[in-house]
C-alpha cells in the first residue's frame, strides 16, 4: 500500500522536475518548486510509515511553510519598495 503510494509520489516528482528543468517561463518553475515541496512532504510522510516511525510529521509542517515563503519571493521580491508608498 505504502510502497505503491511511494512510487506514485516519485513519479509525480519526476514530472514536476521535468517542468522545473524545461521551464519555459518563470512561473512554470515557481509552480514546479512549489509542487516539489508538496511532494517532498508526502514522500517524508510515506517514508515515515514505511519505516515504522511516523512521528516526524513536524517536518512536513516546516516544508509546507518554506514552500509558502519561497513562493512569495519571486512575486514580491524582498518587500523592499513598500515603505512610504500608499
Amino acid at each position, binding site marked *: 500500500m505504502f510502497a505503491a503510494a511511494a512510487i506514485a509520489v516519485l513519479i509525480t516528482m519526476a514530472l514536476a522536475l521535468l517542468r522545473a528543468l524545461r521551464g519555459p517561463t518563470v512561473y512554470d518553475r515557481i509552480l514546479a518548486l512549489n509542487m516539489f515541496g508538496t511532494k517532498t512532504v508526502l514522500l517524508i510522510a510515506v517514508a515515515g510509515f514505511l*519505516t*515504522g*516511525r511516523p512521528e*516526524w510529521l513536524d517536518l512536513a509542517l516546516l516544508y509546507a511553510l518554506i514552500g509558502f515563503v519561497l513562493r512569495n519571493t519571486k512575486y514580491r521580491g524582498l518587500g523592499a519598495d513598500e515603505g512610504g508608498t500608499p
Partner: protein
Amino acid sequence: MTLAGHWIYWAIVALMMVGLYVLIARENLVKKIMGLNLFQVSVILFYVAVAKVRGGTAPILVEGAGDVVYSNPLPHVLMLTAIVVGVSLTAVGLGLAVRIRAAYGSVEEDELDRLDEADP
C-alpha cells in the same frame, strides 16, 4: 568494494564533482555560490550516508523498546554545524557579490577582469 555496498558513495562523489565544477569553473559570482551550495550539501550527504546503519532508525530513543538499532547520531550533529557554516558562507559570499555589483556594475569575472585592467 561492491556495487550494492558502495553505489551510494559513488553517486555522492558525482554530486560533489558537479558542485566543485560550478564553484571553480563558472564566471558568474552568484552561480559560484550556488556551486558552493551543491558542493557542501553533497559533503553533508556523505556524512549522513556514513552514519546510516542497516535496519536502523533515527537516533531518537524509543521508550521501553528492547533492541532497537539506531543510526549513528554523531555525524548528524557534525552536519548540523556544517549546514550552519554553509549558510554563513553563502550569506557573506552573496554580500560580497552585491557589493561587487554595486562597485563594478557586473558580477561576471571576465567583465570584472577587464574593468580592473582598464583602471590602473
